[in-house]
């Protein structure tokens, strides 16, 4: 290895050689190898180096990837079908999309340090609510296809799982229909039933349909209402700026993709989907919802609301298995709407509709349409499409006889003339509106935020102002256990913006995506080698979707063998809530396996339950290392016990950062495993999405990996064949630059850092759940209940006080209530680990002052945390501790600089009791 090649791993890994020596000395071990041999059981170790290419330097890897991606042929797309060309406003590209303050933030569970992106997501909800006319909009879903599937789920749960029929009032995009069918099958639902009746759960109205046509759904909606069925609109949000809101047409739910609001196609994703519902369906809605509450001083503060709907609380009874939203992309879409404003969006929409209407008129087509014209060309579709390609344009070949043409904001007058010429007609000279129903008018998006940021100076400052409210990885360590908040290196991120990566349509001809194919083939091979599996699917666009895809593969494997009875899914009580939620969606019956007092799976209970359900056993879901951060030595026996009863083992790869290069799930006995590329493999969390959750499987499950209609198969779990394709280069770059040895060193360092933190803090907080040699894996659970007992200081007080010290709290109350789970990752340098440990020790000392009554239990820096600048600078100060203690608890010794939270503690109870999830229009404010 040359020095130049070694550079990246050295920069990705935080602690340098001297730091490592000091950390090892603190642990009293002579070498990293000794520590790893203490922490990781020999029985699970991989006995050879990973077979990966030798690491490339940053420049070399970028050049190699560019050479590959240049093999993509990016023509101007008129394919449509849910994906549209966009002009990303440069002010958004530079200040939001490519800004680590936005993309390295975590999901906004800790509201006080997340006000910027919460405000933007609140604006997203307001935008969606304005467009759809429905009062409750969520903070985004994964893509349009899964959003329609989630809407069907809402309708199904609304009818308490008793109505199973779904009626389609028009043709959905093929990929949407496929995902909806994939989701419906395990639940016993019937998609595409002809008649509305007592069994109808919902009617889906595509608005417009996949061929661009608006039907006349009035009668069918009336019938649906009579039958008590839910009406779901799948509506184009750009068209909605010109047409009536779906709510006024009778929609109970509206969903769709926000991609064309300034998010590049990216060969299929990531993009944000929207979902809005009526008040009556609010508690059945899946995914994250931002609510406005107040802080301890009565000022407005945003927070995630109604979390009891979600999988981490409700488990198999949750409204969905989804955890991740598409926060970064939802925020981009919102910024686009703010930048253009309602009249700007209408101008774009009118122009798009004008181009489409002129083509339609030239062809003699008279139908209600927005942006898409479907042209009948008997027998000549392929010939015409080929000619279009020669002119640099991609048309949609629907079949031998039909071509679809979809216009977007990037389409030009010249494009229109060329396309009209291909059909042998002249486009009409005058545009006319071809939209159905009453026009929208100007009375929407009246909220000030959509009107006051029109100069670039203001927009730039608006984005900066929001970013400054948040604490992301660009400011401080985010020690969230189970979340693996490691470095998202700039070199990894750069390719996402390349035109040959960002501007390709997912259904472009196969020969146009040769670069993507070369990259994904290589990436699949690398991930298979790292995890020990035979085949990998990159399609699942979140960890939850990977789980779901893995369980579906298991389900279909059993069905193929005639084992329709195998529906029991064993899940340890310590599992993350997504596991049971995914199992329920895959039509499985969850049976909980006990855990021992030290957090391990109770092997005897597992064996007994596997035997009890021998004929019905479908799968075991196991997290490894466990959710308690321990390498269970019995893992091979556990897998064997399940296989003896013909069950399959699903391994949750949430904690893969403890394994890479040291052990492989496939070698431990797992049949399928998902990996979170947004954890272990450097895709940033985006402030709450995107995520990517590929699955690896053994050969016998490979035939059951998700397919896609675009490649002639089915059972897709996401809208696009490669899910969030445009961010896969991040992981490609990471692996390419680290090499096998670098990845292994990263894992070893992550384990060292976790053990170092545990060692430094163990005198102040008991460390729960250690392995046999007293070592933890890549994370550690600090038992903060000691402060509750001694001083009445709860885990939430500690989490909020960490904000005053300049930190995002570790994972709170999971997997054990009242504790903090810390995962430092390999990327944090020793001085940042030390700063964190000093903060935790400082908090323990402060609690001691509460315990000895120096400070009262109800007035001390912990229960009052976090402290805002406004509060600490105010003329009045009545607390028994000083302003300096409040805001600068470490004096001026904090090298990271001061982070000021914009709000004090946000009222969770008040926010859930009085839900406010969209900004009211100005007329309402005035009245």
């Amino acid at each position, binding site marked *: 290895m040359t020095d130049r090649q070694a550079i990246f791993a050295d920069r990705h890994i935080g602690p340098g050689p001297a730091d490592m020596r000091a950390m090892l000395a603190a642990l009293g071990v002579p070498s990293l190898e000794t520590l790893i041999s203490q922490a990781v059981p020999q029985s699970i170790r991989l006995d050879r180096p990973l077979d990966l290419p030798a690491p490339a330097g940053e420049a070399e890897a970028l050049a190699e990837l560019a050479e590959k991606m240049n093999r993509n042929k990016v023509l101007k797309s008129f394919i449509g079908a849910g994906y549209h060309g966009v002009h990303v406003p440069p002010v958004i590209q530079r200040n939001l999309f490519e800004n680590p303050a936005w993309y390295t933030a975590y999901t906004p569970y800790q509201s006080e340090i997340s006000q910027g992106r919460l405000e933007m997501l609140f604006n997203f909800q307001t935008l969606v609510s304005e467009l759809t006319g429905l009062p409750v909009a969520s903070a985004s879903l994964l893509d349009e296809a899964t959003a329609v599937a989630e809407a069907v789920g809402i309708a199904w749960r609304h009818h308490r799982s008793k109505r199973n029929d779904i009626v389609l009032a028009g043709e959905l995009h093929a990929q949407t229909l496929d995902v909806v069918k994939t989701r419906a099958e395990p639940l016993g639902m019937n998609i595409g039933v002809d008649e509305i009746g007592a069994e109808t759960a919902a009617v889906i109205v595509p608005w417009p349909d996949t061929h661009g046509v608006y039907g006349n759904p009035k009668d069918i909606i009336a019938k649906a209402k009579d039958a008590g069925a839910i009406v779901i609109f799948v509506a184009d949000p750009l068209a909605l700026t010109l047409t009536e809101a779906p709510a006024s047409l009778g929609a109970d739910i509206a969903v769709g993709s926000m991609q064309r609001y300034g998010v590049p196609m990216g060969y299929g994703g990531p993009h944000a989907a929207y979902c809005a519902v009526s008040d009556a369906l609010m508690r059945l809605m899946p995914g994250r919802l931002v609510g406005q509450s107040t802080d301890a001083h009565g000022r407005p503060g945003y927070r995630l609301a109604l979390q009891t709907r979600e999988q981490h609380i409700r488990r198999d009874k949750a409204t969905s298995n989804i955890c991740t939203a598409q926060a970064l992309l939802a925020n981009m879409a919102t910024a686009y709407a703010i930048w253009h404003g309602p009249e700007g969006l209408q101008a774009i929409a009118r122009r798009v509709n004008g181009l489409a209407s002129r083509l339609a008129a030239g062809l003699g087509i008279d139908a209600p349409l927005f942006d898409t014209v479907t042209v009948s060309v008997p027998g000549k579709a392929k010939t015409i499409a080929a000619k279009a390609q020669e002119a640099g344009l991609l048309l949609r070949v629907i079949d031998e006889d039909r071509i679809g043409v979809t216009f977007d904001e990037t389409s030009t007058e010249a494009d229109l003339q060329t396309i009209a010429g291909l059909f042998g007609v002249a486009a009409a000279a005058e545009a006319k509106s071809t939209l159905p129903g009453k026009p929208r008018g100007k009375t929407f998006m009246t909220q000030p935020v959509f009107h006051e940021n029109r100069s670039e100076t203001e927009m730039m400052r608006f984005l900066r102002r929001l970013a400054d409210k948040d604490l992301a990885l660009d400011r401080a360590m985010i020690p969230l256990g189970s979340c693996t908040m490691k470095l998202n290196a700039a070199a990894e991120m750069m390719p996402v913006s390349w035109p040959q990566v960002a501007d390709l349509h997912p259904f472009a001809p196969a020969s146009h995506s040769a670069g993507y194919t070369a990259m994904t083939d290589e990436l699949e091979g690398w991930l298979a080698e790292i995890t020990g599996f035979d085949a990998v699917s990159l399609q699942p666009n979140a960890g939850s979707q990977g789980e779901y895809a893995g369980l579906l593969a298991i389900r279909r494997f059993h069905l193929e063998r005639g084992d329709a009875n195998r529906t029991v899914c064993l899940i340890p009580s310590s599992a993350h809530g997504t596991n049971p939620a995914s199992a329920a969606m895959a039509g499985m019956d969850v049976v909980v396996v006990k855990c021992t007092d030290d957090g391990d799976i109770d092997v005897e209970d597992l064996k007994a339950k596997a035997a009890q359900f021998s004929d019905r056993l479908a799968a075991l879901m196991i997290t490894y290392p466990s959710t308690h951060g321990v390498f269970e030595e019995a893992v091979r026996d556990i897998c064997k016990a399940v296989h003896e009863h013909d069950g399959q083992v699903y391994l949750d790869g949430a904690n893969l950062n403890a394994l890479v290069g040291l052990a492989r799930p496939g070698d431990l006995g797992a049949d399928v495993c998902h990996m979170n590329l947004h954890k272990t493999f450097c895709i940033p969390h985006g402030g709450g999405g995107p995520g990517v959750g590929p699955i690896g499987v053994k050969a016998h499950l490979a035939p059951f990996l998700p397919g896609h209609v675009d490649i002639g198969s089915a059972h897709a779990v996401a809208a696009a064949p490669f899910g969030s394709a445009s961010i896969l280069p991040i992981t490609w770059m990471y692996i390419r630059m680290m090499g096998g040895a670098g990845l292994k060193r990263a894992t070893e360092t992550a384990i060292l850092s976790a053990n170092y933190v545990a060692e430094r803090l163990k005198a102040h907080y008991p460390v729960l759940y250690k392995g046999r040699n007293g070592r933890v894996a890549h994370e550690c659970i600090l038992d903060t209940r000691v402060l509750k007992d001694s001083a009445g200081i709860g885990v939430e007080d500690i989490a909020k006080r960490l904000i005053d010290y300049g930190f995002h709290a570790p994972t709170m109350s999971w997997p054990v209530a009242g504790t903090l789970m810390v995962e430092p990752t390999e990327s944090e340098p020793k001085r940042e680990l030390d700063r964190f440990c000093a903060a935790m020790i400082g908090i323990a000392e402060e609690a001691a002052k509460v315990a000895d009554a120096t400070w009262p239990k109800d007035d001390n820096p912990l229960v009052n945390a976090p402290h805002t600048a406004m509060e600490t600078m105010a003329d009045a100060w009545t607390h028994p501790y000083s302003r300096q203690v409040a805001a600068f608890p470490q004096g001026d010794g904090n090298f990271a600089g001061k982070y000021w939270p914009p709000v004090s503690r946000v009222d969770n*109870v008040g926010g*859930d009791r009085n839900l406010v999830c969209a900004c009211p229009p100005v007329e309402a404010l005035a009245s």
Partner: protein
Amino acid sequence: MATTYFTEDHEWIRVEGGIATVGITDYAQEQLGDLVFVELPESGKTVSKGDPAVVVESVKAASDVYAPVDGEITAVNDALSSDPSLVNSSPTGDGWLWKMKLADEAQLEGLMDEAGYNAMIG
């Protein structure tokens, strides 16, 4: 004369003339913390002992309240829809959850009295 019974799941049942009023105990509301939502069943629904009848939600937890005995739900406390905090402020009074017509009064015999319940929670 009303008689009040208690379950191991921290519910109270006040029986008067074959109609039982059901709620959660003060201890239970204390453990759950501030409630933000109560999901009530439909009046007229028939439930069996052990069926989840109501879901009470705090900000961070959702808990089922089970039917303590078989019967038909005859009324639900609609006031909780707008003010779930009644369960916290008055768990055994205004914060009642539902009323039910008992199918089999003999089922009450397996339940605790107040002294027994207090002994259980210590």
